[in-house]
C-alpha cells in the first residue's frame, strides 16, 4: 500500500437525518496503523458518523467527501464497503432469528474472500479459525449454532461483534460504543481482541462516550465531536481531561 | 331459520304500519335477504332469534311514565332515547339543546357488517343528531320498553372537538333493540365512547356501529356487554385520515343461554393509522361468546400499526368462546400482531388464594377481575369502571 494515501479521509462531511442537520462539516484523517478515538456527548453525531461510513440508509449526505484508501466510499453499497475492508461494530447488534450465527460469519467471510479473488474457505478451516477466535473471546461454542444474536445477553452480543471482527480481519474497524454495557472483565476481553488485531496496516476508529475503553486500547489520537463538528483533537491525555472535566468546557471553548 | 319466511314477516309488519317510509330499504331487504351464518362475518351470530321477534314494527306508544334510570356520572348531561325516540321526559334540558331530531337516516351502503341495519332503515322513526364543535360530556340512554325499537344516533365531531360520551343500552322488558350509531370524527377530534349494555335477558340486541376517522383523530371505545339474551355488535370503522387512531377495548360476559357476538372490522386507508383492539370474554353456563376482530390494511396505508389481543375464559363446560383475530394486509410497511388465548381460571392461583384464607367465591371474583383487568382499566371514569367490574366479575364479600 502506498503509505501516502490515508486509510480514511473525511472532508467537510455534512449529513442530515429527516431534515435535521446532524453532522455540520466533519474533517478527519486516519492513516494506516492508527487508532483514533471519537468522543463526545450524547447526540453529538458520533453514531451518525459511524453509520454514514458504513452506508446505512436513512441519512442524507448534503456535502463532503469520504475517501477510503483513496476510493470514494460514499458511492459504494454497504456490502461493497464491507468487502473493501470496512467493518462496523454495532452499538446495538440486531437479532436475526433463525439465521445461524456461524452461517452468517461464513457467508460474510466468503463474500469478502471472493471479492478479493480468493477461494472460499473450506468448512474445516473455517471451523478451526472460528473456534480459535471464540476461545480468545471466551465465547461459548454453543452460540455458534444459535440464531445471530438471538437471545444473547448484551455482553454476548458485544463479544460476538468482536468475534466477527477477529474472523473478518478488516482494514478499518469502526467500533460504535462497543464498550457500553460491558462489565470490566468483558471490557478487558474486548480490548484484548482489538489490540490483537492492531498492526501497521490496519486502523481503528473507536466511537465512545467514556474513556474507560481507552485505558485498555490506547489511541493515537482523540477527537471531540460535538454539535456535528470535530471541536478539538489531541492525544490520549485529552481523553483523561474529558473524563475529569466533562464535555461542556470543550463546547464553551468552541463557542468562545 | 327460514330466511324467506322471516323476510315476508318483516315486510308484512312494515306494510301493516303504513310502509312507504323507506321503499329503498324494503327493496334492499328483498334483494339482499338477511345475513346467513354461512357468511363468514355472521358465522357465530344467533340469527334464529329473529324468528322469535313477535312484531318488527316499532313499539307504537311511547311510555310517558318516567323510567327507572341509573345514576348519572358527574359532569355529564343526560339524554334519553326511549323506544327509538328522543324523550323530553328524563332528558336534561341542556342535553336536548345540544342535540336535535332529524328524519331517519338514509340506508347505509351495503356491506357485510351493515347487513342487518336494513331493519332499522325500514322502521326507524327518527335520528338523534349530536353535532359538537368544541366540547361535550353526554350520557345517552337507549331504552327499550318491550317490542321493537330502532334508535339512531348520528354523532359528528367538528375538527378538534372533544366529546365524552357514555352510551347505555337498557331494556325494561323483553325487547328487540336495533340501534344504528354513526360516528364521524373531523381532523384532530377525540371521542371517548363508553358503552355499557345491561338489557334484560329476554332482549335481542342487533346493533350496527359505523365510524369514519379523520386525520389525527382519536376514537377510544370501551364496550361492556353484560345483558340481553342475544347481542350482536357489527362495527365498521374506517381510518380514513392520516395518523388516525382507534382503540377498542371490550369485555363481555355470558351465563345461562346468552349469546354475545361482535364483529369489529377496522379498515386502514391512510398512512400512519393505528388500531389497538383488546377483548376479554367470560363465558359461564351454556353461553356462547364470540369476538371477531377483522383488520384490513390497504396499500395506501404504509406505516400502519394493528394490535389485537383477544382472550376468553370458560367457566363451565357447556359454555363456548369463539375468537377470530383476522388480519388482511396489503402493504409491507406495517406492524401487525395478534394474540388470542382461551383457558379457564388458573387452578394454581385459585388454590393459592384459598390457602390464604379466601373463600372460593371471593377467590373466583378476584381472578375474574384480574382476567378482565386490561379491559376494565381502560374505563377511566371511576364510577363506571366500578359498575362494570361489579356487574362483570361479581361482588367481593
Amino acid at each position, binding site marked *: 500500500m502506498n503509505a501516502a494515501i490515508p486509510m480514511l479521509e473525511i472532508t467537510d462531511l455534512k449529513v442530515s437525518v429527516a431534515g435535521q442537520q446532524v453532522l455540520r462539516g466533519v474533517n478527519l484523517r486516519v492513516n494506516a496503523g492508527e487508532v483514533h478515538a471519537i468522543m463526545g456527548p450524547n447526540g453529538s453525531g458520533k453514531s451518525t458518523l459511524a453509520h454514514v461510513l458504513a452506508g446505512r440508509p436513512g441519512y442524507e449526505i448534503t456535502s463532503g467527501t469520504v475517501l477510503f484508501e483513496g476510493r470514494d466510499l460514499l458511492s459504494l453499497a454497504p456490502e461493497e464497503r464491507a468487502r473493501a475492508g470496512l467493518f462496523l461494530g454495532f452499538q446495538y447488534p*440486531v437479532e436475526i432469528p433463525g439465521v445461524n450465527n456461524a*452461517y452468517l460469519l461464513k457467508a460474510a467471510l466468503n463474500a469478502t474472500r471472493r471479492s478479493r479473488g480468493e477461494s472460499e474457505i473450506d468448512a474445516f478451516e473455517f471451523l478451526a479459525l472460528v473456534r480459535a477466535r471464540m476461545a480468545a473471546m471466551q465465547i461459548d461454542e454453543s452460540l455458534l449454532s444459535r440464531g445471530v444474536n438471538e437471545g444473547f445477553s448484551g455482553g454476548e452480543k458485544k463479544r460476538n461483534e468482536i468475534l466477527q471482527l477477529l474472523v473478518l480481519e478488516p482494514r478499518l474497524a469502526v467500533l460504535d460504543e462497543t464498550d457500553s454495557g460491558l462489565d470490566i472483565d468483558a471490557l478487558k476481553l474486548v480490548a484484548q481482541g482489538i489490540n490483537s488485531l492492531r498492526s501497521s496496516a490496519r486502523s481503528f476508529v473507536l466511537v465512545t462516550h467514556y474513556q474507560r475503553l481507552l485505558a485498555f486500547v490506547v489511541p493515537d489520537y482523540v477527537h471531540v465531536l460535538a454539535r456535528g463538528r470535530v471541536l478539538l483533537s489531541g492525544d490520549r491525555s485529552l481523553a483523561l481531561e474529558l473524563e475529569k472535566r466533562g464535555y461542556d468546557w470543550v463546547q464553551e471553548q468552541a463557542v468562545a | 331459520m327460514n330466511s324467506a319466511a322471516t323476510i315476508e314477516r318483516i315486510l308484512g309488519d312494515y306494510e301493516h304500519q303504513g310502509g312507504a317510509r323507506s321503499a329503498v330499504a324494503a327493496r334492499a331487504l328483498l334483494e339482499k335477504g338477511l345475513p346467513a351464518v354461512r357468511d363468514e362475518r355472521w358465522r357465530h351470530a344467533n340469527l334464529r332469534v329473529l324468528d322469535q321477534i313477535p312484531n318488527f314494527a316499532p313499539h307504537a306508544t311511547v311510555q310517558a311514565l318516567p323510567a327507572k334510570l341509573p345514576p348519572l356520572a358527574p359532569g355529564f348531561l343526560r339524554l334519553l332515547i326511549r323506544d327509538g325516540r328522543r324523550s323530553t321526559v328524563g332528558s336534561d334540558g341542556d342535553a336536548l339543546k345540544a342535540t336535535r331530531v332529524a328524519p331517519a337516516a338514509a340506508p347505509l351502503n351495503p356491506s357485510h357488517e351493515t347487513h342487518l341495519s336494513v331493519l332499522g332503515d325500514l322502521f326507524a322513526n327518527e335520528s338523534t343528531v349530536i353535532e359538537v364543535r368544541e366540547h361535550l360530556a353526554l350520557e345517552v340512554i337507549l331504552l327499550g320498553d318491550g317490542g321493537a325499537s330502532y334508535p339512531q344516533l348520528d354523532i359528528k365531531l367538528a375538527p378538534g372537538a372533544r366529546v365524552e360520551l357514555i352510551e347505555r343500552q337498557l331494556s325494561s322488558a323483553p325487547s328487540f333493540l336495533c340501534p344504528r350509531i354513526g360516528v364521524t370524527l373531523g381532523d384532530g377530534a377525540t371521542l371517548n365512547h363508553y358503552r355499557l349494555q345491561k338489557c334484560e335477558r329476554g332482549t335481542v340486541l342487533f346493533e350496527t356501529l359505523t365510524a369514519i376517522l379523520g386525520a389525527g383523530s382519536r376514537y377510544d371505545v370501551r364496550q361492556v356487554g353484560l345483558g340481553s339474551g342475544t347481542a350482536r355488535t357489527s362495527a365498521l370503522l374506517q381510518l380514513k385520515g392520516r395518523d388516525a387512531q382507534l382503540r377498542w377495548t371490550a369485555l363481555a360476559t355470558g351465563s345461562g343461554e346468552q349469546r354475545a357476538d361482535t364483529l369489529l372490522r377496522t379498515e386502514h386507508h391512510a398512512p400512519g393509522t393505528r388500531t389497538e383492539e383488546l377483548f376479554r370474554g367470560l363465558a359461564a353456563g351454556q353461553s356462547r361468546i364470540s369476538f371477531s376482530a377483522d383488520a384490513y390494511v390497504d396499500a395506501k396505508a404504509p406505516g400502519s400499526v394493528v394490535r389485537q389481543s383477544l382472550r376468553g375464559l370458560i367457566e363451565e363446560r357447556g359454555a363456548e368462546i369463539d375468537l377470530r383475530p*383476522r388480519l388482511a394486509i396489503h402493504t409491507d410497511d406495517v406492524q401487525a400482531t395478534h394474540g388470542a388465548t382461551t383457558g379457564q381460571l388458573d387452578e394454581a392461583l385459585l388454590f393459592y388464594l384459598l390457602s390464604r384464607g379466601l373463600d372460593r367465591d371471593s377467590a373466583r371474583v378476584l381472578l375474574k377481575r384480574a382476567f378482565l383487568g386490561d379491559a376494565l382499566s381502560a374505563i377511566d371514569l371511576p364510577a363506571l369502571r366500578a359498575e362494570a367490574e361489579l356487574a362483570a366479575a361479581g361482588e367481593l364479600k
Partner: protein
Amino acid sequence: MSEANAQLDALLGGSYRHGFVTDVDADTVAPGLDESVVRLISRKKGEPQFMLDWRLRALAHWRTQREPKWANVTHPPIDYQQISYYSAPKKKTDGPKSLAEVDPKLLATYEKLGVPLHERARLAGVAVDAVFDSVSVATTFKERLAKAGVIFCPFSEAVQQHPELIERYLGSVVPYTDNFFATLNSAVFTDGSFVYVPPGVRCPMELSTYFRINAAKTGQFERTLIIADEGAYVSYLEGCSAPMRDENQLHAAVVELIALQDAQIKYSTVQNWYPGDEQGRGGIYNFVTKRGECRGARSRISWTQVETGSAITWKYPSCVLRGAGSVGEFYSVATVNHFQQADTGTKMIHIGADTRSTIVSKGISSGHGQNAYRGLVKIFPSANGARNFTQCDSLLLGPQCGAHTFPYIEVRNPGAIVEHEASTSKISEDQLFYCQQRGVATEDAVNMIVSGFCKSVFKELPMEFAVEAQNLLAVSLEGAVG
C-alpha cells in the same frame, strides 16, 4: 455447513426448473364429465362394484354442489366439462411389472425431476411411487417393504389386491360428500398411492410419491390413503411438479390418513407445481383436501408442507384428534410471488381428552402474491385438557403483495388451553443492513433472513427434503426484493 452451501447453490438457479414436457403417447379420454366417464375410469382400472357405486354416488352428489367461494382467492370460472378426467401414458402391454418395463422416457422425466426412482433410490433408501398424470408408474422397493409387511402400491393396485382395506377405510376420513373438490375427486380419481403399515411395524424407509402433471388440458385427481395400524410408524413424502403451460390445470387430490392406537404418521409435502408466469398466465389450481384422523389413543399425525408452486393453492391439511392423548401437528411454509394466490392452513379438531395440537405457519408474500393462513382450532366439550398452540407469522417482501390471517378459535371445554400468536412484518431494514455490513449481498441477505424465518418448519422435514425446500424457496422468491 451443507445447508449453507445448498442455499448458496440455490441462488444460482433460474426460474421454474421443472417445466419440461415429456413426449409420450398418452391414452387420454375426451374432455367432459358424466356417468359414462366415471364408468370408463372404473372399467379401465378393473375396479370391483363397490368402487364404481361409490364413485357414482359421489358424482350424483357433486352435481348438487357449487364451487366454494369463501377462500381468499380469485380465478376465472372453471369449466369442468373442458377437462379430461383420465390420461395415462399408453402402455405396450398390460403395464409395467418392474422398473425394467417402465417407459424409459418416463424414467428420464423423473431423473430430470430428481426423483430417486432408479438405482439412486436404492442408495437414498427412499421408496418411491411416481404418479404421472393419472397413473401410478412404478413403485420401487416393493419387496423390501413387503418383507416388513408394509403395503405400498399404486391405489389402483390396492383396490384389486386389498379391497377389504379399501372398502373399510376409503372415505372414512374424507367422505365423498365432504366438499366440492373432494367430491369431484371421489367420482373421478384415477390413481394415487396406498400405504398400510401393520401393527407394531416401523416402516423401514421413507415412502415417497412424486406427482407430475404432463398432458395438456388434463386434471389430476389422485387419491392417497395411508393407514398406520396400532403402534406403527411411517414417514411419507410427497413431491410435485408440472410443465409450464399457458392454460390453468386443475389438481384436486384427496389424502386420507388414519392412525390407530399409538401409531404415528408423518406426512411431508414439497409442492412446486408450475405457478404460472410473471404475468400470472397459466399455472396449476391446486385444490386439495388432506385430512388425517388420530383414531386411536396416543396416536400422532404430523403434516409438514412447503408450498412454493401453483397459481392457486387451496388446502388445509387437518387432524381429527379422536383418540385420547392424540397429537396433531401442522408445520407450513407457503410462499407466493408474481400473481400466485395461496389460501392454506389447517383444522385441528379436538374431540378426545388430553389431545394436543401445534400449528406453525410461515407465510411469505412477494410480487403481487396473496397469501392467506386460514385455520380452525375447535375444542369439543369432550376434549378435557386439550391444548393448542398456534404460531402464525407473515413476511411481506414488497408493497404490492398481501398477507392475511384468518384464524378461527372455537372452544367448548373449560379445561382447554388455546393460544394463538401471529405477526405480520417486513424484513427489518436493520437486519438487512447488518448482513450487508458484513459483506453479504442484498439478495443473499434476504434469502438468509427468509430461511431463518422458516427454520422452525424446515427442521420438521426429512433431511433431503429440507435441502430441496430451501432451494425452492430461494428460486420461488427470485427477484422479490430488488
